[in-house]
């Protein structure tokens, strides 16, 4: 590993660009110049901007395709059912934005106003922002490296005119890289309530999710809890349940017990959820009494309770 800065001292350390591990790193010169040491002035600006946002929740998963965007969208729909609750949904999956489609907003464009970019509104109390609204065609690929993605996220947090918001939900791409580090750093001064981690039951997914949890711990991001998605499939004909993604290592429940974090609930695999997302409609409206809707609702309630006023700072950090 000699050529890779395995022990990167960090851009803000005194050793930045000077350590032995910095040899050969493409950022060496930049780090050595000290430019990385000064805190980004945007962090303070974002803190100011976020004063009108009460709660900030990140939706994370180490693994792709487990249902982060589906969950984020339904968390937004669920919270926005109370018309006195103002909800904002921010999609920071820059290379694969799914939120516009799932929210039924494909082809919408962002409008520029005096106070910044206006989010696209699904309901009066549910605003959405995504890089998808900035693309001219659904075939457009955003082939961007890290720094450009970070710049976009900064703009989303600083330059979008969110207004007074009760919940800002941030949907993230898979992994533990630029987007995740950036959103956490930019919101550092503004306080994030916590992260909801989405997984599927099989070990291949859980092994990535454990990495995401270790990321949360590294960056001191409180974990609200874990949602197990695609958990069991009930055949529409014979009503018997099968495990399409078998929990070979005990599923999210065993993982949560081991790592001492709450399991917020399990959402069964219901083919109608995918169809609702493809049509851009809320599954809650399409199937109000289905087991999946009930599972979602109970999870949403637990998240609301977590963000509730009785929760002290200490509890948040220790969880």
């Amino acid at each position, binding site marked *: 590993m000699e050529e890779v800065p395995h022990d990167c001292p960090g851009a803000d350390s005194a050793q930045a660009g000077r350590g032995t591990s910095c040899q050969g790193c493409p950022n060496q010169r930049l780090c050595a110049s000290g430019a990385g040491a000064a805190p980004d002035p945007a962090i303070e600006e974002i803190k100011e901007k976020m004063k009108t946002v009460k709660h900030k929740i990140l939706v994370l998963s180490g693994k*792709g*395709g487990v249902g982060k965007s589906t969950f984020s969208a339904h968390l937004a729909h669920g919270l926005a059912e109370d018309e006195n609750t103002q909800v904002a949904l921010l999609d920071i999956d820059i*290379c694969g934005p799914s939120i516009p489609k799932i929210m039924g907003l494909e082809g919408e464009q962002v409008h520029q106003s005096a106070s910044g970019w206006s989010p696209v509104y699904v309901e009066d109390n549910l605003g959405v922002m995504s890089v998808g609204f900035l693309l001219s065609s659904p075939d457009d690929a955003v082939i961007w490296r*890290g720094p450009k993605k970070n710049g976009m996220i900064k703009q989303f947090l600083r330059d979008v005119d969110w207004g007074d918001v009760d919940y800002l939900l941030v949907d993230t791409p898979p992994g533990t890289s630029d987007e995740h580090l950036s959103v956490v750093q930019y919101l550092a001064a503004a306080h994030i309530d916590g992260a909801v981690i989405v997984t599927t039951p099989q070990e291949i997914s859980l092994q990535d999710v454990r990495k995401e949890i270790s990321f949360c711990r590294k960056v001191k991001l409180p974990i609200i809890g874990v949602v197990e998605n695609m958990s069991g499939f009930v055949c529409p004909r014979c009503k018997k349940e*099968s495990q399409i993604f078998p929990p070979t290592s005990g599923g999210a429940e065993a993982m949560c017990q081991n790592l001492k974090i709450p399991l917020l609930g399990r959402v069964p695999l219901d083919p109608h959820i995918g169809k609702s997302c493809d049509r851009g409609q809320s599954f809650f409206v399409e199937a109000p009494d289905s087991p999946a809707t009930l599972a979602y609702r109970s999870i949403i309630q637990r998240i609301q309770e977590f963000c509730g006023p009785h929760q002290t700072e200490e509890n948040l950090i220790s969880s």
Partner: protein
Amino acid sequence: METAAEPENLAGVRHIILVLSGKGGVGKSTISTELALALHHEGKKVGILDVDLCGPSIPRMLRAQGKAVHQCDRGWVPVFVDREQSISLMSVGFLLENPDEAVVWRGPKKNALIKQFVSDVAWGELDCLVVDTPPGTSDEHMAVVEALRPYRPLRALVVTTPQAVSVGDVRRELTFCKKTGLQVVGVVENMSGFACPHCAECTYVFSRGGGEELARLAGVPFLGSVPLDPELTRSLEEGHDLTQEFPKSPAFPALTSIARKILDGLPATLS
């Protein structure tokens, strides 16, 4: 670090196939693994390079977790997953001390490691190098294409699931292939249809037909659909070879036919 000459370590590699998808969790690693196994059963020598640095899945799928990469005078020796040494694997998973450790790296650091994977792994003679990628069109993809493109024509296998949300992301991946000059060998639709083990009713859990339609729109070959199959999931969870242990699995003929089509599509040097 940059050299115009071909890295010696790639000299014995005949073909390179990148497995790509704009969307996560559609089965890139599954298809990479099964493709490698199918090629291995055809008597080919295969290497897998896992460039998903934040979420490497291949070591588990080939039951190679915890194995170590050794150094030789030509660089890193990949991990051999079978006794005959016909499948070799390189992944960041082998470089982590603790499997739960998060690789919290920004782009430049990821690019540096990928460059090293390309230049410093002693692959030896390979019929085919399968490169498994993370979701998206960002640092890892550009790094691997930039590092490999000068030496071999690069082929891309694009994986999607049938639903529109996934197809939407994969359309963007095809644009990436076009822009970077990758030759798309075809589209594979994964997770299409689930046959209930109790009553045999087939449910299209993630809708149907999206992959074929995408291939038609983009003018690239459609290689086939792989059904949702708990036996396939289980074999990958436990690192077994599906083609050996579950020959009756519905995913098996689908995967074999896809591998066959890919093999037939490669220039004759492979045979």
